[in-house]
């Protein structure tokens, strides 16, 4: 040791790092059950939150909470009675497990609404009352008195015009499910389905609960199918998506993690033929894993499964540092520490570029990407730190020169080289033309649905079940506000009046709004006034049917009659299933508190329907206090905005790279930049030809590629004709390629896009870099 000061500092740092790693490992191991139990599979958790719009956040949260603990199973068969039989089988198979609870409650809505019945009118009856003559009213009552059935449940004299019965019947419009023969039945496209509605005792995101429930559902499905080949079994619920996401994440973590590890150990073992090298790689990777996990667990409340899958693909990146160090030791007689000191600046440079690229992930407002960024940067830093601090002590004095190194040297010599010749320019122009064709085809798609969709078969099942049961859209709604509950309800009613034509036109299937069950005070008073006008008709009918005078008074409401208020409605069990729609009050800064509710929409026909709804509040006459919320579109718009921003950042990086490298490489700078830029362009062109749309994550992948591609070029240019360096970059590129290639197999389209773009970019950079090497 010729410089004892730095050596002591190095030893001290290495000691600290070792203590830190051991402590971190202990912390992780101690909390293992706790944090692995909190691994998040909720894709909504990856989405941005808008803290400036607390009401919107509360509404989306309420909507998510409403769906989280619900599960519905639809069973159909050849005909109605076969469907009932199959449903009974399914119910039997699911009962007694403690995994699902049948939805309960015995309140009769009619009994609750009865005292206020004169305040409720169906839309059709309200219209009828506005124009009805006394004679028409008399005829209507008389006809109903003779009819063996009334739509309502009251006796004729309690509802002589059938208004309350019609209103109750109009409530049923909210769902196509009908209770019949003890079973909730629904008919859809000629098939009869029995619906089993359950609530879940645990969160849909509790991992072991999900898996037990799915196993039980699969057993029920098998039992139904065994008994009846024609039976159809559809299950719908957030929990199923969550369970699938958990299983998928576990499978992919295993695939990517094990694949990358096996690939790494195999290649390292094959090339370096040293058990020591494998141990060293393990030390570096383990350090990276510990650092990444500790950061994720301590910075975030819940670690997301997607982060872990992505994290598994970092193995191929983190292993690069160790490989670079090994390559420099091949067949060298120089003392380990000396070589290390020489290598350190390069190692630092190589740390910075990918870390910066990964850090760009955190610049977006997506919590999911932020988590990935923290995970990546800490993981890479952990692996790098162990290489820098531990390897000088752990490395053997020398690594034997492998036989393969000679092959590498010959390979790089034979590699096609760029010459300033007509032929070279011809090939370049041809490639550029082909690339231009691909670039022209490149399509942009920022639709978030395309990024985080699950298994298509399962999505189709969920969509089918949602359509049959007319479940409301989980990401779209109207947010309605008002200074008072009354104003809120009136605003809702104005909105509903505009939704009705859309329903009639088949643009939407239906809606769920509080005012359906709780009309505004104004609307209830209007109903009372309209019915008050029927007194002369009632008098005539009473005379004809010999009814007592008291009946006339009972049947004709006074305008001063009491109305159903939000307080009474909210306090009663009758409102329980719809209470989630009522969001309560919220204060925007400095203003008086406002009351809010959600209006949910069922059966949105298509994107055009959603656009029509989005324009609804603004179109004349404008709807007061109504805001359209389309989470899917908002997030997609955000993705588009950040794709634009990051594209500019990428272009800036492309311009900045040659400027920053110029002081070191001078006239050779173009040899470093050219292969990387060409690789990026060709990656985009290939994506264009393969019809893979460009989106936020592909831009991020290109940033990563730029970082890594520049690294390879720097290495090769700095020590060109050095076969060891080519060996190192080749190994590094292969392993990175392996990891990203495995990531490209992910079923999560977002990860697939990231993996595929990065794999293409890395491969092309690695192939093109030797082309631009200066002739030795």
């Amino acid at each position: 040791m010729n410089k004892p000061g730095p050596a002591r500092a190095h030893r001290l740092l290495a000691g600290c790092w070792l203590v830190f790693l051991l402590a971190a490992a202990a912390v992780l191991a101690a909390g293992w059950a706790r944090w692995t139990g909190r691994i998040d599979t909720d894709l909504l958790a990856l989405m941005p939150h808008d803290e400036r719009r607390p009401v919107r956040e509360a509404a989306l949260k309420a909507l998510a909470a409403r769906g989280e603990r619900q599960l519905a199973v639809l069973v159909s068969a050849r005909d109605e009675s076969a469907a009932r039989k199959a449903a009974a089988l399914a119910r039997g198979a699911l009962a007694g497990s403690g995994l699902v609870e049948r939805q309960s409650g015995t309140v009769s809505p009619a009994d609750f609404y009865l005292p206020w019945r004169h305040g409720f009118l169906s839309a059709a009856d309200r219209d009828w009352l506005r124009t009805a003559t006394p004679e028409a009213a008399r005829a209507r009552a008389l006809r109903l008195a003779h009819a063996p059935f009334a739509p309502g449940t009251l006796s004729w004299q309690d509802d002589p015009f059938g208004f309350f019965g019609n209103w109750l019947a109009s409530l049923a419009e909210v769902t196509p499910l009908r209770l019949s023969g003890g079973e909730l039945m629904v008919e859809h496209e000629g098939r009869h389905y029995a619906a089993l509605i359950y609530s879940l005792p645990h969160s849909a995101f509790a991992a072991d609960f999900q898996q037990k429930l799915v196993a039980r559902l699969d057993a029920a499905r098998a039992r139904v199918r065994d008994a009846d080949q024609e039976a159809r079994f559809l299950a719908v619920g957030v929990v199923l998506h969550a369970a699938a996401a958990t299983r998928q994440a576990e499978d992919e973590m295993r695939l990517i993690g094990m694949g990358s590890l096996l690939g790494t150990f195999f290649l390292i073992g094959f090339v370096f033929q040293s058990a020591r090298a494998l141990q060293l790689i393990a030390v570096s990777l383990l350090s990276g894993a510990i650092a990444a996990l500790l950061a994720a667990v301590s910075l975030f409340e819940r670690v997301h499964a997607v982060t872990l899958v992505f994290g598994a693909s970092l193995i191929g990146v983190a292993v690069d540092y160790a490989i670079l160090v090994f390559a420099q030791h091949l067949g060298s007689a120089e003392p380990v520490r000396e070589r290390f000191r020489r290598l350190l600046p390069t190692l630092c440079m190589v740390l910075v570029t990918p870390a910066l690229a990964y850090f760009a992930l955190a610049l977006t407002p997506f919590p999911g990407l932020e988590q990935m960024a923290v995970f990546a940067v800490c993981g890479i830093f952990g692996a790098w730190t162990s290489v820098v601090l531990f390897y000088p002590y752990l490395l053997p004095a020398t690594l034997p020169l492998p036989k393969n190194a000679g092959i590498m040297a010959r390979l790089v010599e034979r590699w096609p080289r760029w010459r300033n010749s007509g032929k070279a320019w011809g090939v370049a122009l041809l490639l550029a033309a082909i690339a231009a064709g691909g670039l022209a085809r490149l399509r942009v798609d920022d639709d978030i649905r395309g990024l985080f969709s699950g298994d298509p078969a399962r999505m189709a099942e969920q969509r089918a079940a949602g359509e049959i049961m007319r479940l409301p859209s989980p990401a779209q709604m109207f947010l309605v506000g008002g200074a008072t509950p009354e104003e809120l309800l009136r605003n809702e009613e104005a909105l509903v009046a505009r939704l009705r034509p859309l329903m009639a036109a088949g643009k939407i299937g239906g809606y769920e709004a509080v005012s359906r069950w709780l009309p505004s005070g104004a609307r209830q008073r209007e109903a009372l006034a309209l019915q008050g006008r029927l007194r002369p008709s009632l008098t005539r009918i009473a005379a004809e049917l010999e009814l007592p005078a008291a009946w006339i008074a009972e049947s004709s409401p006074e305008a001063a009659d009491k109305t159903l208020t939000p307080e009474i409605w909210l306090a009663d069990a009758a409102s329980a299933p719809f209470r989630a729609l009522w969001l309560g009050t919220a204060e925007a800064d400095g203003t008086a508190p406002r009351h809010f509710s959600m209006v949910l929409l069922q059966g949105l026909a298509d994107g055009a329907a959603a656009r029509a709804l989005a324009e609804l509040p603004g179109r004349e006459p404008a709807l007061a206090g109504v805001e359209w919320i389309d989470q899917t579109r908002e997030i997609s718009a955000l993705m588009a905005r950040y794709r634009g921003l990051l594209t500019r950042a990428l272009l800036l990086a492309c311009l900045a790279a040659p400027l920053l490298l110029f002081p070191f490489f001078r006239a050779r700078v173009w040899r470093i930049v050219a292969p990387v830029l060409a690789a990026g362009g060709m990656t985009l062109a290939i994506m264009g030809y393969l019809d893979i749309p460009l989106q936020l994550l592909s831009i991020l992948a290109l940033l990563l590629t730029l970082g890594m591609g520049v690294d390879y070029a720097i290495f090769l240019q700095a020590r060109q004709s050095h076969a060891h360096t080519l060996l190192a970059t080749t190994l590094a590129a292969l392993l990175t390629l392996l990891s990203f290639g495995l990531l490209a197999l992910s079923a999560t389209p977002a990860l697939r896009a990231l993996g595929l773009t990065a794999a293409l970019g890395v491969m092309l950079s690695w192939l093109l870099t030797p082309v631009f090497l200066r002739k030795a």
Partner: protein
Amino acid sequence: MKLLKRLKPAALRAALVLACLGAALPARAAGLLDEVRARLVLAPVTKGEFLQTRKLAQIDKPLVSNGRFLVARDIGVIWENIAPFAQTTRLTKNEILQTHDQGTATRLSADKEPVVGVINAILFGALSGDIEALAQRFDYSGKVTGDAWRLDFTPKDASLARFVRGLALSGGRGIERIEITSAAGDVTHIEFKAQVQAGALSGEDRKRFE
């Protein structure tokens, strides 16, 4: 959806009780329907007159009406009220079409008005003598004396019981009387007279279903 969900436990209990009862007495119950079926002669088309007497709970004066009917078993029912008011009700599989007062029509579709489907099924079952269809929704009992028979139906589930408390059919070769007791206790008696059976709809009658 929630509205109906809340009705379920009661319905479940009712269904459970009925299932147990049904399990205990399967042979006898099935035998009863067979015996009635053996006496009942159902032609594809039945026409005739009806006399309806409706007794509302707490109202002394009975409401009497009369008219004509036409039952086409595979197509639907036309119920033509003549007095004290003119009204034609046409029941087909998926809708109820009511025409009254100089052609004012109300069309209720089973897709949109869920109650329509239920009422339709019951009326259709009762008027066309499709006792098997009724037996799907109702628990039943009855007796057979010589050629005459009577069947009493009570709803199997709570949602149906909210509309109808009971249904009784009686007759011999044809259905002669229907008695409907609503949930509120109103009792409707329908008597069929001058019944004529035919093998197919006449061209004119066919048009009425179009």
